[in-house]
């Protein structure tokens, strides 16, 4: 009987352990998409990036991409500028990623964030990721859920923002946790 009970322990945890993937509490993909769109209102990109479509890239597989695609048919940046959503695989080269105004790094690709940040250090690309502490690991803005209040929080790495020649509005700086 005791062996049977031990077996239950082993079975239950051996079933769940293989499917573990590191991630904090997931922000709803629709919400992530809403925040990404909102950044276009509160961040100013350099003048040389103001022509053509506003490009939002998604690195890796993420339901956020599908949500962004839905968005393009309905909304424009500042009401006039078309939004183009591009999906990139993990082996995408830096030159193609640099064409993005915003690059959302999916959870699965977040382990390469540091490397990616170095690669794109001279670009004007806003790197957006999810999870508390990710703004210290190379992301410019990270979105996460504060579980105590059940509210979305934003982490903003001001140094990274400046190095990418981006300017955040005073409102965004006041509302985000600036690192």
């Amino acid at each position, binding site marked *: *009987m*005791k062996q049977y*009970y031990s077996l*239950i*322990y082993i079975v*239950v*945890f051996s079933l*769940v352990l293989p*499917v*573990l*993937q*590191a*991630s*904090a*509490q*997931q*922000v*709803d993909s*629709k*919400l992530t998409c*809403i*925040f990404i*769109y*909102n950044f276009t*209102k*509160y961040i100013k990109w350099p003048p040389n990036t103001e022509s053509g479509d506003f490009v939002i890239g998604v690195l890796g597989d993420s339901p956020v991409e599908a949500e962004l695609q839905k*968005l393009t048919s*309905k*909304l424009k940046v500042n009401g006039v500028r078309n939004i183009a959503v591009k999906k990139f695989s993990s082996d995408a080269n830096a030159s193609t990623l640099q064409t993005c105004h915003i690059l959302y790094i999916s*959870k699965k690709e977040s382990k390469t964030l540091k490397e990616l940040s170095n690669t794109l250090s001279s670009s004007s690309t806003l790197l957006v990721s999810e*999870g*508390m*502490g990710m703004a210290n690991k190379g992301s410019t803005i990270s979105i996460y*859920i504060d*579980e*105590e209040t*059940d*509210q*979305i*929080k*934003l982490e903003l790495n001001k140094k990274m923002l400046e190095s990418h020649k981006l300017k955040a509005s005073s*409102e*965004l700086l006041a*509302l985000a*946790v600036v690192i």
Partner: protein
Amino acid sequence: MYKSFTILLKQIGHYSILTGFLILGTFISVSAQQTAQAEIDTTTTYDYYSMSLEELLKLKASGVTMSSELEKLINSLIGVASQKAQSSRKSPSIVSLITEEDIKSSGARDLIDVLRMVPGFQFGMDTQGVTGLSIRGNWAHEGKVLLLLDGQEMNETMYSTLQFGNHFDVSQIKRIEIIRGPGSAIYGGYAEYAVISIITKSYDDLKGLQITGTYGTMEHAYARRNISISAGQKIGNWGLSLAVFAGQGQRSDQPFTSFYQGISRIDTVYNGQEIQRIDTSYVPQTYSMKNNSALNPTNVNLGITYKNWTFRGIYDDYQATIRDGYDVSLSRAYPNNFKSWLGEIKYKWEINSKLTITPRLSFKRQLPWQYIGNADEYSSYNKQADRSRGSITITYDLSRRVNIIGGGEFFNDRGYNFSKEGDTLFYNGSRHVSFNNKALFAQTLLKFSLAHITIGMRYDHNDAFGSAFVPRLGITRKFDKLHLKVLYSNSFRAPGIENINFSIDNHINPEKSSVLEMEAGYQIGKNSFLTINLFDITTKDPIVYNFEEGDSYQNFPRSGSSGLEMEYKLKERWGFLTVSYAFYTTSWKKETISLYSVPGKNNVTLGNPAHQIGINSNVHLGSDWSASLSGTLLSNRYGYIAPETVGKFTPAALLNTFIRKQNLLTSGLEVGLGIYDILNQKFAFIQPYNGGHAPLPGPSREFLIRVSYTLKQTN
């Protein structure tokens, strides 16, 4: 009907309460408009794009329309498990959350119905008609489970028990947060096996007036006739809520047969040399519980908030009558009353965004098990217990990843014996006793990306029984769809005043438990969620009431249980389904309590089925109609059916159905009809220890009507 209502009002007592309602009602009626339904969030996804960043950051992450109802539920914050609210999936305890909707839709009559939905919770009978809880196969009635009503400790201080059965009003409940496991590291000496935290509707939830009337009838007698009135309103910086519940109920309408024949009158004869007792009047062993098992509650609950100040006042008067006595039937029913007055004031001092200090003062006065009378066959009991408590809790966010909570608590327990007959003195030779209890507690919550780690401890020192130190460690990790918990905690049960008073040589140790738990939870889809948890409880020095050793309390060597619990939740547009399963065994424990064990069986305890399945389901039928099926399926139980004779009670299916119609004829009016114990099992409350008491017959099938009217102010 009018007459019954008048009697009830007189029971509530005094029209001062009604005056309060009139004032609130007048204020509400000026500004109130009837709402068609509970507010429906009509925000579409597209609307969120036009919101400002500030507005977006104020949204509840689990409360936006894109989260399913189930996701909102499983990600909702729970405060009972760690003094720092966290989502239920990351709380460092095995938790159950019962919502207002769960209660309303199931048609639960009282807390017994509600708590039967909780895996591992089972009801048994103690003595004098009082029913209590067993948790995970362990009789937990005396001091092992803490019940908080709006933060107020409802356990009576003499024996540390709780009383169930038409007691607390379920229509006033907003939510119930339950720790199915140890809570002593936070809550101290009553929270050894479980914590039940009932949160009633605040002024903000009420924003008006709610009236609920309930009438239930069994085969041979009425089961309950209760009325509940609650009102709440915000006036400037003041938030006020007042709830009153009063009624009459009966435990059962079935015949009860005691093991022994009672004696109602004893004549004493003095023959010049010696006193001779001559028993002169015998009582039949069998009587009908109709009109002999009253459960008449009165509860007044007042909440006042002003800025960061909070006041809570509760008056609870639970008037029961009993005729089953200890081991013999009595000639008539006697009162067995439980009165409590509770008050608390606290201030949340937010020094800055990181540091909060909360001082709290509370007072509790109780007169439990009270019978003021004098009968040969039933002793009077007239004792008062006061608990005066002061505590301070400091919460500090060291960083976004580290939260520290610490503080101290002091309480003084005083017992007074007002009895004129029988034992009029406590063990100290006085009519009053006094103990002091000092406690320090601390908790650190570390939010690593790898896992959330909660490390906690509480140290109590009591004048009467010594010290208890209980550490706690909780490791929780949430992945995308999956969460895992590994929890280890010590907990303890503080002896109550009477446990010390009736202990052998007036000395008893607090009992201590070590509990290991593991939980895995997986969100199967957008709308369904499964949790599985395992537990192992070892209790050292359990405090046991020993009927055979002259009604004394003593420490036994060890007890405990191991087992598994599962819960599956499905929430769809058509309604919801919750199915739970609980299993426990004592066969892996080296020692058990002989008085609790079943002769010839080492895997189960008296009164507690090894397997328990819980069901709560609800279907929306359209046009504000809904129907529910709820209940519990239980495997074999064992209990004493005659002196030294244990009987097997066959598996039982306690099934209830409830149909309700919201907004009937007018908005805010709700009517529900229910049938309880559809199969008419007359489920007996078994005494989970060898105490010489026959099982108490449960009620027969009950038909119930509930009418509720809500007048809510629209913003």
